[in-house]
């Protein structure tokens, strides 16, 4: 709400514009950048004293990055990993949201599906990798399957509990205004559980990344996971850090992207959040 004339007057009288004393808490962005900067600096200085077989240091890693990039090897493997990741994750999100909505809304669907969902969710995905490799071979199919299974459950479980927490009174409002089942789904259930679904997507994005790398480390043929195995076996620690840092940065970017997406889709949640 805009200030009215009396409020404007009051504001002028109060004269709150005088500079506040400097506080670090007002410069949180700068504090973060400084923290990362200092860590890299310390790593550069003290990392040089450690045996390069065990630990590398930033400038050496930067050099290794340049090497790998010029050879084109890194890009090729990263692209392969990302393709598998994108396909598996998309399938997981689609099916996870659909099943979650269904199980949350319909008792029958819940009771038919929940034994499998809970059992599979409780099984560490890593335990299934050998089996999936056996079924689908060393090619992309087995990796897609693992990414899919890694991403499926977080989004499914979150969607399910999101639908479950939609307040009965909102559904009733829909019914009172003549909404049929389709409209209740589209205009009440889905938007009401959207914050949960988005939280599920954020989890799934991370889990699927773990999934793809683990699978590639198992198969050790292609992808960033294979690079990790190759460089660590060769004791090329500086090169080893290249995919590691790439994955860290990728993880941060993806989770931020989902967060931004969340804010666009659910702006009412943003303003509801307390400081």
């Amino acid at each position, binding site marked *: 709400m805009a200030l009215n004339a009396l409020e404007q007057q009051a504001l002028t009288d109060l004269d709150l514009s005088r500079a506040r004393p400097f506080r670090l808490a007002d410069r949180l962005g700068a504090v973060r950048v400084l923290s990362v900067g200092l860590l890299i600096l310390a790593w550069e200085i003290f990392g040089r004293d450690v045996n390069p077989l065990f630990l590398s240091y930033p400038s050496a890693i930067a050099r290794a990055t340049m090497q790998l990039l010029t050879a084109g090897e890194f890009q090729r493997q990263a692209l392969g990993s990302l393709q598998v990741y994108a396909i598996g994750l998309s399938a997981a999100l689609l099916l996870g949201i659909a099943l979650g909505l269904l199980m949350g809304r319909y008792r029958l669907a819940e009771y038919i599906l929940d034994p499998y969902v809970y059992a599979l969710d409780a099984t560490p995905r890593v335990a299934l990798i050998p089996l999936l490799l056996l079924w689908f071979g060393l090619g992309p199919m087995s990796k897609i399957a693992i990414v899919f299974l890694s991403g499926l459950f977080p989004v499914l479980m979150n969607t399910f509990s999101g639908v479950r927490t939609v307040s009965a*009174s909102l559904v009733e409002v829909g019914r*009172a205004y003549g909404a049929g089942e389709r409209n209740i789904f589209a205009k009440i259930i889905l938007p009401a559980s959207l914050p949960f679904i988005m939280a599920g997507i954020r989890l799934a994005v991370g889990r699927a990344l773990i999934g793809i790398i683990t699978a590639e480390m198992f198969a050790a043929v292609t992808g960033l996971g294979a690079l990790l195995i190759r460089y660590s076996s060769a004791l090329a620690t500086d090169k080893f850090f290249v995919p590691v840092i790439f994955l860290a940065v990728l993880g941060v970017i993806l989770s931020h992207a989902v967060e931004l997406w969340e804010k666009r889709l659910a702006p009412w949640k943003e303003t509801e959040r307390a400081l």
Partner: protein
Amino acid sequence: MLEVRQLSKVFFEQNDPSKPGLVALYDVSFSVRKNEFVCLLGPSGCGKTTLIRVIAGLIQADRGEIRVDGKPVTAPGRDRCMVFQQFGLLPWRTVLGNVEFGLEIDGIPREQRREISRRYLELVGLHGFENYYPHQISGGMQQRVGIARALSKEPDILLMDEPFGAVDAQTREQLQEELLKIWSKTDTTVIFVTHSIDESVYLSDRVIVMQSRPGRIKEEVRVELPRPRWEGDVKADPRFAELRARIRESLRG
């Protein structure tokens, strides 16, 4: 226009027909004329909310029937619109979007429902707040949105379930007055649930006093105070005090 005939509703524990939990309504009958303002008044547990929800078509009665203009109703319809105690606004929709909701369900084209919604927001005094989200405005304003949403469908019957129960006393009085003004400009029939004697006398043409266990009608009290009631001080009228005392007695005995 609205007829309630021998309505009964029993709630069971865990929906188990062998475990009756509460006889919410027992043999309730009354009728309401077009453009009448009727209050359902009673202590909590007297079935007044159950009654209005049956009329809205949100729950089914076990016996008896509801007729609107002679036709029996069992499901929600656009002839009856509900205003909820906790406002029932959709938090992800703006004020305008919330008012549009009911029209959207009816398949009214976008431009047209925009225009209708703006008109009703104007009517309830919320011009300029179209793009706010419900949590950004006060409870009183939220309920105005709820009222605009209901009115925008131009229902024959406006059902109000303790609509001003969740707002502060000053806002409540203001909303009561505005409701009367809006009602006087339309030919809507209003059924208004409340547990406030003053509110029922101030607003209505007739107060249906209910009592609990089982939920039933105790008596009907005509309120023949002059309208418009927002001019002058109706509450200082000796007839107001008389009605209040009479209804209080009825609720007690």
